[in-house]
């Protein structure tokens, strides 16, 4: 009897000791979109993040890190549920990963209200940048509007006078068109909202043709963009009406799928694979060695997010219980971003440069996205004034 009891006591103590031992590694919860047509976006965010960890041998800023990844399936409700589980059952305090603004809108408030940190590797919806900003909410990628503001500026720089704009009917789509219009000096001759699950754009393309704009701006991330571009080309519009887009509509995967049809498209971006800085060289070398597939800016953002966490973990020696110290360390953004110059603005969203890229025929005959100039310098966002922290 006493032997049994001893055994029981031993196993219980083992149970309580084991998690304590594992708790040495700082847990980071990643909620991201891995399934469905947009699954490759989350996959690249995750793999970029993992790449930064791998380069440090499973650590970030010298602190062992345990990355827990869950798929939100592009469903806001599912993202929220995962966040609740991560918070209450796993006691996770550091979060990242969300790709889509509608998922972020449902999930991020729960996370920051619970006192945990969220570093966005992609989505930066306007409401969370302004009035609803939070001291524990950081965005490493961009504020949604900036992507499209830079495209608007690029279209203006290229001298276009009339534009037709299209985006899916959801928060990021509305932000996109608002952002483009804020910096485009010409006239908008047509504005169309598509469905987020739309697969056939023939009706919209016919409207574009009828409106005869000088340029088309469209925002369709992931698989949507591939579909849109291919149908645009098949309708014979690529030769008639040039296109200016922001980077979500023309990433490495889109280009690989669309091929030569994409040549001539103007893109505005905050990062490109050909950026000439040491951090980006390290990243690109590691990516090409590790993964046998095109790199996207989602991967670069996942990587940068890991670096941002690494900088704060390093400064605090891995102590995340002192939230104020951890936050102060994060705010310094003391890391070398793959995009070059980078800092956080007053609402903890990026202040960064935006570049003009163009799809051209590369040396090997395959189309490549080339950096050709600058569009905006030290660009923040329009909402930071509304943010009171």
């Amino acid at each position, binding site marked *: 009897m006493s032997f049994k009891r001893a055994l029981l006591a031993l196993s219980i103590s083992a149970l309580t000791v084991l998690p304590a031992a594992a708790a040495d590694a700082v847990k980071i919860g990643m909620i991201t979109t891995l399934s469905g*047509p947009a699954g490759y976006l989350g996959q690249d965010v995750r793999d970029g993040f993992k790449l930064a960890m791998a380069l440090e041998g499973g650590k970030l800023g010298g602190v062992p890190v345990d990355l827990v990844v869950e798929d939100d399936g592009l469903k806001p409700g599912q993202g929220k549920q995962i966040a609740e589980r991560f918070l209450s059952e796993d006691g996770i305090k550091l979060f990242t990963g969300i790709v889509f603004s509608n998922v972020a809108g449902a999930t991020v408030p729960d996370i920051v209200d619970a006192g945990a940190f969220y570093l966005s590797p992609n989505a930066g919806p306007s409401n969370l940048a302004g009035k609803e900003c939070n001291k524990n909410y950081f965005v490493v990628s961009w504020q949604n509007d900036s992507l499209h503001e830079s495209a608007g500026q690029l279209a203006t720089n290229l001298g276009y006078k009339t534009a037709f704009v299209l985006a899916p009917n959801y928060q990021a789509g509305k932000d996109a068109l608002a952002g483009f219009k804020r910096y485009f000096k010409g006239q908008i001759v047509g504005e169309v909202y598509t469905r987020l699950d739309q697969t056939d754009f023939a009706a919209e393309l016919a409207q574009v043709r009828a409106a005869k704009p000088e340029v088309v701006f469209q925002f369709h991330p992931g698989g949507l963009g591939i579909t849109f571009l291919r149908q645009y080309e098949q309708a014979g519009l690529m030769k008639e009406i040039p296109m200016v887009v922001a980077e979500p509509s023309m990433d490495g995967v889109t280009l690989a799928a669309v091929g030569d049809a994409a040549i001539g498209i103007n893109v505005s971006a905050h990062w490109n694979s050909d950026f000439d800085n040491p951090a980006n060289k390290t990243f690109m070398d590691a990516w090409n060695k590790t993964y046998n597939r095109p790199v996207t800016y989602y991967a670069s953002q996942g990587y940068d997010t890991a670096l941002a966490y690494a900088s704060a973990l390093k400064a605090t020696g891995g102590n995340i219980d002192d939230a104020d110290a951890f936050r102060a360390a994060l705010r310094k953004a003391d890391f070398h971003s793959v995009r070059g110059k980078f800092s956080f603005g007053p609402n903890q969203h990026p202040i960064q440069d935006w570049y003009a890229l163009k799809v051209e025929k590369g040396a090997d005959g395959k189309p490549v996205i080339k950096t050709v100039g600058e569009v905006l310098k030290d660009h923040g966002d329009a909402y930071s004034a509304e943010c009171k922290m």
Partner: protein
Amino acid sequence: MTLFLEQLLNGVQFGIMLFLLAAGLTLIFGIMGVINLAHGSIYMIGAYAGTWVAARTGSFWLGIPAALAAAAFAGLAIEFLVVRRLYGRDHLDQVLATFGLILIFNQAVTMIFGRQPLFVAIPSLLDGSVELLPGLVYPVYRLAIIAVGLLVAVGLYLLINRTRIGMLVRAGSTNREMVRALGVDVRLLYTLVFGLGALLAGLAGFMAGPILAVQVGMGEQILITTFVVVVIGGVGSIRGAFFASLILGVVDTGLRAYLPGLLRHVMVGPDADALGAGISSMGIYLLMAIVLLIRPKGLFIRNS
């Protein structure tokens, strides 16, 4: 006017794609009484198999038999391994089992092909666009889809209404026991019907490839619309599926194309666009609700 005609063609072409999916679905649902959510997965399998073969061999045309074979094989396997056990069961069990199949197929395709979309080029014969009327330029490939869909519709009509198999299928759907009593192997008949439905889904998937992106989850995007077609057309009616597909295709395209413009006459631009987009994405469901109110069994329910 040319814009209107172009939108009409767009609607017809979308409708034809829906028909290829809905025809299989309505056969399976109406005749066998099985709700098969995995129909979209078969569409995806057809698209992946055909696209993969087309990319490997460099020939679009070789992709067609590959897509058909893979989809039919997947359909028969699903029927044999899963659906066969569900004929007598509740619809809820069928939904649950076939939903599970969606997850399994999506994961399997992700593991084999990865998450990045596949690409298939349009064959040079069907590439480019033709000027149908002065000012009305339309992609050849979309015209080809319309042609193939119409051929399939005619073929199905003849099969169901003019052949012995078709007669048994019709009879089996109204009175399964009577057909069995006459010595017909109903089980084999069901397997054939399921295989035929899968074949059509695979064809639709492969034909959609060059227009849409071939990607994981592509089947689910269109599946709900397909169910709406089946409900509007009348469960089990191929004729119903055909006309409901065309109606739905044209209504959906028309709403998307013209509603925001109409609303802009009564309200400011961005609001009109957002509201128009909202209503047009609900349009087919509103249509379904109206049809169900007037004719609860669908527009083209078969005479029994």
